[in-house]
């Protein structure tokens, strides 16, 4: 009260009757968030490809529950500079198996920074390149991808093959990758059950 020029925080605290006011909390979160939230994948140098499946859009990944983790061995599989030991993780918000219609989110931990990630989705009806050369900046990174299992997936589930490369792969390598002829560095199998 003796301070002739009180800070916004002090005035907001008085207006909050002593509680942490909304403006204070907002200012704090603006400072904290950049330090604790992983940056989104960089799209500047990568070709981002978002695929639509079954009329459902691929959107920014939201809060999700990690339900399984399959670090596939990459022994003997380092295509053109691809780095081993990347880990692809999936989450559909509940224990496996995922339910038809329940979105699946993906995140990846690359073995090193600045590699390009490719993810091929194989399910009952499609084979499509889900992630097409997204540059991973290092550390755990959520992918801007959401996949919604369809009824046809309930029988055999979905399979996600993935590769990382230090630089953009040649066209023939990408063709082989799309066609499923290139051995994946890792595979994530997603069991799916019918909706109740």
């Amino acid at each position, binding site marked *: *009260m003796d301070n002739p020029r*009180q*800070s*916004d*925080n*002090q*005035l*907001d*605290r*008085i*207006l*909050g*009757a*002593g*509680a*942490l*006011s*909304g*403006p*204070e*909390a*907002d*200012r*704090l*979160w603006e*400072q*904290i*968030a950049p*330090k*604790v*939230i*992983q940056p989104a994948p960089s799209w500047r140098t990568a070709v981002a490809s978002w695929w639509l499946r079954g009329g459902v859009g691929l959107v920014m990944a*939201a*809060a*999700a*529950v*990690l339900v399984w983790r399959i670090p596939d061995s990459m022994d003997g599989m380092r295509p053109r500079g691809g780095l081993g030991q990347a880990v692809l993780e999936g*989450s559909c*918000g509940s224990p496996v198996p995922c339910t038809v219609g329940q979105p699946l989110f993906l*995140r990846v931990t690359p073995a090193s920074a600045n590699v390009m990630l490719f993810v091929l989705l194989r399910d009952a009806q499609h084979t499509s390149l889900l992630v097409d050369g997204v540059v991973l900046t290092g550390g*755990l990174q*959520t992918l801007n991808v959401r996949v919604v299992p369809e009824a046809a997936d309930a029988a055999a589930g979905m399979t996600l093959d993935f590769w990382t490369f230090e630089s953009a792969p040649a066209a023939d390598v990408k063709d082989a990758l799309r066609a499923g002829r290139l051995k994946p560095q890792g595979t994530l199998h997603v069991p799916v059950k019918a909706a109740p």
Partner: protein
Amino acid sequence: MSDDRPWLDGFRNGEPAALERTFRVYAPYALVILRRGFTASRGGYVNAVTDVDLQHDLLQEVFVRVLSPQVRQRYDGLRPFSVFLRGVVGNVMLEEARRQQKAMARGPVEPVELEDLPEAAPWTPGTPLPEQAAISQQERSLMQDYLATLTPEERRFVGVRFEEGVSQRDAADALGLGRHMVRTLETRIREGLRTFQDQWRRNRPPENPRT
């Protein structure tokens, strides 16, 4: 958080929404600890932090730590999150006290363990916080006089945005306002208080030094 599985998993996975929710829900509780200080079980007292701006600095440090990947993974999800948070707040306060050389000489020099802090009952989100109203009688009196000058809509805004502490986004939703209007009102009310305070101080009776 410990009994909310999606929240807990989102927190562990570093999902932005879960991290922000953790901050918004638990920041008021961390603030309570900051401004009342604590006695460690092994002896020593760490002073309460009374300066609002320093409280902000320390709150920021607390949540940068508690939301970092390394510290997040240390939360077992079994104990109440408030207990876990209390340990982090204690360490940040102790470091600040040491920095200012205000900690008592017999205070511990090693990091505070969870068990060191007074074992008050864990706080559960949604329940009243102890010592929530930590403004002086003068400030309370100022606030009441200032509120009396506001319109009913402005008073409702103060209640939602300042007293309840909701985010700008949620305040806009709750009050049916655009976010730009929320910002405008916020500034107007804050600056109004600044101006009103000057006049109020000039007009009030001399201060009793013991109050």
